[in-house]
């Protein structure tokens, strides 16, 4: 581990990168959002992890499925609002074909949200994942991010059931908590 990488472990975004690496993930397919930009910056210190930007979250799931079929373990990284764009890909490709991937979700609409239009989907994320049979875990702190990401990813690849790791706003945007318009 490089000095920069061990320093990264102190931040949630660096923890994501460390967790991805530990789980053997070498490709991240994503649709960006503001907190995830920190992960993308941190990933610059991890040249073995390739990134591909998709135009839409559903497309990202298709690309990730193709990567797995070609022998590459990947993560799809998206904002929670994009889960709604992904449902058909998850339910008619990822789940029935048992194609595993890590689903990294940057949460909107949870504690610290200021935009009411983000709240309904944010509230729906966990029930939707559960109804599709996608197990999920929520990152509890910056310090435990790496371990949580690695555990969810390893479980997904071992069992061939894709799993979601949720990144709550109290961790990704801590200063925004309780402050409207932050």
């Amino acid at each position, binding site marked *: 581990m490089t000095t920069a990488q061990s320093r990264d472990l102190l931040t949630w975004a660096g923890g994501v990168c460390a967790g991805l690496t530990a789980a053997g993930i070498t490709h991240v397919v994503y649709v960006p959002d503001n907190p995830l930009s920190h992960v993308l910056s941190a990933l610059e210190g991890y040249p073995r992890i390739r990134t591909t930007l998709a135009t*839409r979250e559903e497309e990202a799931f298709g690309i990730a499925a193709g990567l797995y079929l070609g022998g*590459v373990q990947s993560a799809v990284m998206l904002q929670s609002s994009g889960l709604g764009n992904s449902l058909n890909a998850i339910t008619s490709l990822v789940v029935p074909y048992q194609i595993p991937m890590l689903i990294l979700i940057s949460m909107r609409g949870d504690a610290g949200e200021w935009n009411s239009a983000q709240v309904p989907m944010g509230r729906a994320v966990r029930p939707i994942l559960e109804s599709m049979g996608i197990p999920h875990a929520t990152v509890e702190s910056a310090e435990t991010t790496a371990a949580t990401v690695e555990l969810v990813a390893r479980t997904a690849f071992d069992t061939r059931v894709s799993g979601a790791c949720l990144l709550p706003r109290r961790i990704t945007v801590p200063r925004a908590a309780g402050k409207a318009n932050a």
Partner: protein
Amino acid sequence: MPVAEADHGAARGGEGERMTRLDATRVLVRALGTDKTTPIVASLGHPAYDLFAAGDRHANFYTWGSMGLASSIGLGLAMARPDRRVVVLDGDGSLLMNLGSLATVGWTKPANLILIVWDNGSYATTGGQDTATAHGADLAAAAIAMGIHQSVTVRTESDLLDVFTRARTVDGPWMIAAKVEESPPTAKPPLDCVLIKHRFMASQS
């Protein structure tokens, strides 16, 4: 370049020589011959049914859902396996559902991706409703606009074979929009999705 060539070729071919999707699929499968490893990703419905009818191979990945994502699956595969040519059989209606995929392919430019779109101008699997390509939408031109420079429209079996043969050796990404007539499917691939995946992945190891 190739666009103009193939369009001129098609003009010479004339309406009488238009091909059905099944015949066109057979052209590709015949061209692959005994090749057991070149992956072919088929969009759900008629493209997948015709691929199965033209020649079942373990390296055929039949989708049973996820309409629109065949080109995305192909892109992922192409990035994972730069040592293989990756063939995608999409439909016009399906690609129209995920046009952003052309932008991503045009950006990432996988040299080994051959995207073939069976363009019959209709949602044939769902009863033959018109697609936008029956009213002027040009998928090969859209691909060029998105940065997929090797983009061709073909209308005859000989043009399809010519371009496909070139695409297997000349770096892409390639987009081949093949104008086809609808033909009723004659067979269906296995319905077991996990079986399809296991066969496919074993063929790639």
